[in-house]
């Protein structure tokens, strides 16, 4: 085992299993403090101490400036999880996303996708097929003149036989609800529809994981709803692991886990409720929390005794009604006592 690998395994208290067939390491993880691994599972994505530096060169080609975009990130994602990454512009989340797709290589640390190390050149194409990527601007991702041809482009490049390609195209377009538009020109679609075509294009490559880098930033509210619903469907129905990078906190409330990045580091992680109950921490990072969470927070600050981390309007109504009933009961007790 190479030195760098053994040191990071040591750090994680993990044992690796070298799989000869795929020439890669699988990482069964034994929980810290446990002598034997009781529950062994394989991570979809495992990022270990990742560091990424960008270099700016001056006119003579010398390094003029070094910018550390990702600074020691550890992150693990299980297969089938819906993960949201939050953070303001320049916090390193897009750089991190590009590592999962092997568009960038680590300056230090390692990134493993479905048991493959992204730094190994022979893994690149498999990594990119396993981990599809959706970017902000759908216009930059659509290449064909007809929707179904665009969706077929990926599998065609993978050398899939023609009849299979059409099967995949049909299935993918149906999943994102764009099948009826298959003969249309992408140029005539709305932003949300275009983005769904892009998602179908990635789907057709049968990935295990899709990374979406602010896929809704350029869309109007209905386009945003369409794309988020499509992502959720892929996750729930197809079991595809989703990593969604967004500025819209409402898109994060149904996630399994939320990671918050700042200055290249993961500064908060947890369930949406755990993250959004820390309203002041989020505001300090100049991030939003859902409006209903903020409203509940305002009420709490004014002495209304409802729980922290309310995420939906239903929860707020329940909390207020319950609190009201309790208080009423208490008032009544006081009256009868007299």
């Amino acid at each position, binding site marked *: 085992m190479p030195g760098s690998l053994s040191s990071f395994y040591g750090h994680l208290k993990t044992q690796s299993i070298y799989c000869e067939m795929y020439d890669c390491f699988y990482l069964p993880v034994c929980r810290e403090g446990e002598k034997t691994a009781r529950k062994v599972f394989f991570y979809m994505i495992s990022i270990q101490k990742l560091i990424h530096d960008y270099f700016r060169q001056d006119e003579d080609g010398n390094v003029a400036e070094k910018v550390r975009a990702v600074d020691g990130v550890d992150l693990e994602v299980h297969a089938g999880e819906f993960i949201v990454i939050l*953070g*303001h*512009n*320049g916090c390193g989340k897009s750089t991190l996303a590009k590592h999962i797709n092997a568009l960038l290589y680590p300056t230090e640390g390692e990134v493993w996708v479905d048991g493959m190390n992204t730094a190994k050149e022979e893994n690149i194409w498999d990594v990119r097929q396993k981990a599809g990527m959706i970017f*902000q601007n759908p216009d930059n991702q659509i290449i064909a003149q007809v929707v179904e041809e665009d969706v077929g482009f990926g599998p065609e490049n993978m050398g899939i036989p023609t009849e299979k390609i059409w099967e995949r195209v049909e299935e993918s377009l149906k999943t994102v609800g764009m099948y009826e538009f298959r003969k249309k020109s992408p140029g005539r679609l*709305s*932003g949300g529809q275009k983005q769904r075509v892009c998602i179908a294009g990635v789907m057709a490559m049968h990935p295990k994981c899709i990374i979406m880098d*602010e896929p809704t*930033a*350029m*869309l*109007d*509210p*209905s*386009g945003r709803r369409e794309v988020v619903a499509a992502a959720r469907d892929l996750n729930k129905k197809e079991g595809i692991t989703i990593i969604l990078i967004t*500025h819209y906190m*409402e898109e994060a409330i149904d996630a399994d886990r939320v990671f918050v990045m700042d200055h290249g580091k993961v500064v908060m992680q947890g369930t949406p409720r755990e993250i959004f109950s820390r309203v002041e921490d989020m505001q300090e990072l*100049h*991030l*939003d929390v*859902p*409006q*209903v969470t*903020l*409203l509940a927070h*305002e*009420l709490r600050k*004014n002495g*209304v*005794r*409802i729980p922290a981390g309310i995420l939906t*309007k*239903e929860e*707020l*109504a329940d909390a*207020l*009604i319950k*609190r*009201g*009933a309790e*208080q*009423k009961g208490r*008032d009544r007790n006081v009256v009868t006592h007299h």
Partner: protein
Amino acid sequence: MSLTIEDISFTYETGTAMQVTALDHISAEIPDNQFIGLIGHTGSGKSTLVQMLNGLLKPTSGRILYKGADIHADNFDRKNLRAKVGLVFQYPEHQLFEADVISDVMFGPKNLGLSQEECQRRAHAALRSVGMDKKFYEKSPFDLSGGEKRRVAIAGVLAMHPEILILDEPTAGLDPRGRDEILGLISEMKNRMNMTIILVSHSMDDVAEYVDRIMVMNRSHLVYDDTPARVFTHYRELEEMGLSAPQVTYIMQYLKEQGLPVSTEIFTLEEAAAEILAHRRELHV
């Protein structure tokens, strides 16, 4: 009265199979010193409308009057109009091109034929008002962050000293901090310079917080033109147009449905908190 939109219609590609009516008999007044939100679904005609206002497009029928004069009359000075009605396009940072920030902002005033000193004076003032200090002047616009670039692009239009500033989705693609900075800046500029601002936006939450008046476009028609409170009472119709009311309106709506005695004509978070707190006794909370 600064601008009057008088029954204008506009058709793209007239007489071809691709013919599309983008504006259908629109009339409105744009007065001085007002903050207007222009909202509408993608393809509703709002971008066509803003391009009408500074004469980039000519209506197929109807007239646009600037201080009473038809802007498409032969003797009308449209170059001056474009200085007076400033238009900041979506992703304006894509239009930065000069070698440094200061020259980029000076480009507009220079084209107005102003002296070098005047151009510089205006550029400095414009950059100051968007919060970009001197250390940025000599930098290449391409070395700035997304939010900074956008502020430089807005400064470029401000340096033309517009009376009406139209911003098409000025916060698209920005993070929450960038968004708050830009909207705060626009609101503050409006008050300080007595400008009229037309904010084209998809975000009802932004619009509810800042504007005095909302114009709603749907399928080439101007369907609502009123105060935010009045427009948002039509939230069900807005939804049918692919739009929505601010999120707090839905929260209050739901609370009311659950039997809590709160008003639903609430459009900002502060109002919502105040409304619930005002009913504390009845709610027993």
